[in-house]
């Protein structure tokens, strides 16, 4: 029986982008369904009744929710190509730790960069750059967090690059100026087709964020 893979997603979601990249890396064919989050489909509500969020990976009718859980599922099922997690259990734990760090920090702090002002913004800017610095430290001299090829942490993190124009334009921030090695890593990732085809244009994401800002009366 051929595998049936469906991805419930929302085009600017960095969490959805993670799964797009992984599926592309593994050469998996799938049906992409873009959700209108203001009007969630019955399928989404059925497949993720607990959180009602995207992304949801549906494999032969069975849903997997939470992007890092789904990434590990993809890696385990399609284990013939492009492994995301290393085979050594200590290195796997380290990869999970840093992906979890990205989850705990980058999204929430990044959000503050375009929704807050004044002191709150300044604190968020410092936090954000500190986090990038920590990630840069973890990358070290490697081409990718995964070593020579894209790994779990690379896939978890690179989608946020599509939001950098939003983060930077909102408050005179330049990640490249503070952390050039990080941006060098970004550029290496963007050279990969699986990444460049999975991330939307930064300008498009910027327009989207500004729409949201206006809608919620945030200036």
């Amino acid at each position, binding site marked *: 029986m051929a595998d049936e893979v469906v991805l419930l997603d929302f085009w600017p979601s960095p969490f959805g982008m993670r799964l797009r990249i992984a599926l592309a890396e593994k050469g998996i064919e799938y049906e992409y369904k873009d959700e209108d989050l203001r009007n969630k489909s019955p399928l989404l509500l059925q497949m993720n009744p607990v959180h009602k969020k995207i992304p949801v990976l549906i494999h032969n009718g069975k849903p*997997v929710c939470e992007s890092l859980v789904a990434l590990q*599922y993809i890696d385990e*099922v399609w284990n013939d190509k492009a492994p995301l997690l290393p085979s050594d259990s*200590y290195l*796997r734990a380290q990869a999970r730790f840093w992906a979890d760090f990205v989850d705990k920090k980058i999204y929430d702090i990044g959000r503050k960069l375009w929704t807050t002002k004044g002191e709150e913004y300044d604190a968020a800017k410092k936090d954000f750059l500190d986090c990038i610095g920590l990630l840069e430290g973890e990358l070290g001299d490697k081409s990718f967090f995964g070593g020579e090829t894209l790994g779990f942490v690379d896939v978890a993190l690179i989608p946020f690059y599509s939001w950098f124009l939003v983060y930077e334009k909102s408050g005179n921030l330049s990640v490249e100026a503070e952390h050039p090695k990080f941006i060098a890593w970004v550029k290496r990732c963007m050279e990969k087709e699986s990444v460049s085809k999975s991330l939307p244009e930064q300008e498009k994401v910027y327009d989207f964020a500004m729409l949201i800002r206006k809608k919620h009366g945030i200036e």
Partner: protein
Amino acid sequence: MATEDVVLLDCWASPYCMRVKIALEEKGIKYEERAEDLFGGKSELLLTSNPVYAKVPVLLHKGKPLCESSIIVGYIEETWASPPLLPSCPYARSQAKFWVDYVDKKLFDAGGNIWRTKGEAQEVAIKDFIEVLKQLEKVLGDKDFFGGDSFGFVDIITIAITSWFLAFEKFGNFKVEDHTPKLSAWINRCMQRKTVAKVIPDPEKIYEFVINLKKMMGME
């Protein structure tokens, strides 16, 4: 294997530390427990082993540090195969990981909101907490354990937090059993296990700990 091979930087009241201890006990691994004084002053070893968060638990295996309790339990599962804490089928594993993530994101914080608030805010907090319990009870269904017939990953991640339930109940003046009797039965079932009974502290002591914590935080 020498005990010094596995060291746990620990705090007796932390449910996150309890998870790691239960996992180690389940796998029959000897380990050295090193108590951290989280209020007096964190040890040099803790600060260098967990520079990102400076939190317990930290597991040191042959000197190499592992942080974040669910990740540590995952490492224990992958490093010492027997008995397995996760199912072998990838889909069932993904579901177990989903519920681990749910418990991690929801349960302790929901309980924490109960002892941190009063009046109407506390009523909301209790309602939210019970919603989480009801969701977990639904997932458990008629199974003995979240892992099915055998005690597993989700059971370990969740049972540790139940050590704080008496504290939540006393501060909120409610009983978990009144709302989710099946989940309470599951708690009792888990507490029958030697590994769990050995690790989980007396909930009365946790209650006293929270009272002191509130005093220290200057809360009424």
